[in-house]
């Protein structure tokens, strides 16, 4: 699971008001090389919750992102885009869990696939 997906997922358990961002528990991380595409990054930048990406990247062991949410002027910087690219697309959570920030319920991640299915009493 790439952090792009982590930034799109939230806990939708019945009654949960703020299910985002899911906290990450790491058992295994892989880095996979992905072709760089600046146009995609510039488009996605505005949709990404910076703090969620920053914390997720830190949890996966990548500390190169700026702490403060950058404004869109950084999109002209190749150095920034490379780091953003790496955090968003190249860090892969292979094994671990995503934890609902409100209930602590764990959504397991197995072979890179998060299981977002709810139990009957959570729907």
């Amino acid at each position, binding site marked *: *699971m790439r952090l792009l997906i982590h930034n*799109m997922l939230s806990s939708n358990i019945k009654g949960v008001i703020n299910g985002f961002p899911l906290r990450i528990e790491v058992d295994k991380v892989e880095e996979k090389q992905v*072709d760089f*595409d600046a146009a995609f990054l510039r488009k996605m930048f505005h949709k990404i919750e910076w703090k969620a990406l920053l914390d997720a990247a830190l949890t996966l062991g990548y500390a190169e992102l700026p702490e403060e949410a950058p404004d869109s002027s950084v999109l002209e910087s190749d150095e920034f885009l490379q780091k953003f690219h790496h955090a968003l697309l190249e860090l892969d959570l292979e094994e671990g869990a995503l934890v609902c920030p409100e209930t602590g319920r764990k959504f397991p991640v197995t072979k890179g*696939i998060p299981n*977002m*299915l*709810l139990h009957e009493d959570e729907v």
Partner: protein
Amino acid sequence: MSSKIARIDLVSSHPEVYEPCDDSFALVDALLSDRTNLLDFHPRLCMEVGCGSGYVITSLALMLGQETTGVHYIATDINPHALQVTSETLKAHGVHAELIQADIASGLEKRMAGLVDVIVVNPPYVPTPEDEVGQEGIASTWAGGENGRRVIDRILPVADRLLSHKGWLYMLFLTSNNPSEICLQMKDKGFSARIIVQRATEEENLLVIKFWRDSPVQADTNGMVTTTKTEPFMAMGSLGSLFSRLSFWRSDNSSC
């Protein structure tokens, strides 16, 4: 890998995962016939709901290219075996999609709303007794309840929510799903519709319909939804005559 669609001999399998069949081929043929438009459209995020063997999402990724062309793929399925098989099928073709075990798009609906440019769906469309819907195992890949609409009717509002303002939806139906009624419902949400592929097999009359946002739909201050542009709904006339034609038309396609 130069081929434009997935190779059947490279599609992985599992006893509890639906294998590519006439419906899957019809959906991929529809995407292939619309490939030029898709390339012009230049989608960023493409998604398949219910990816099964991975045949369709792999074919789409081969058709449109991967990260070098700036297209990213996401596929969901409720069945963990399907996701494993899809993962193997993608890998065998050297393409990538992010996989999520979900009920339609559970967990994604909030944050991914309005972000997906293309959604493809081969839903469980077979009319069955209601209690067969959503059972574990392979039956969930086809069991559609009354008129085959149980799952279809849950997917359509999710697709509406996830699709970007210019988003396209490709969905497979049987004539017995009453697709003309579905097109009317989608029209109310601001979508136009066109039949891309029509195919009669020995057992089924299949249709692939493409929906796209045509009229900008705006919510006014009272929360009432109004359609600002009212163009004649092009597909409806042809749908009616098509359905009557289909009932007389048999191809010599063999069933699976």
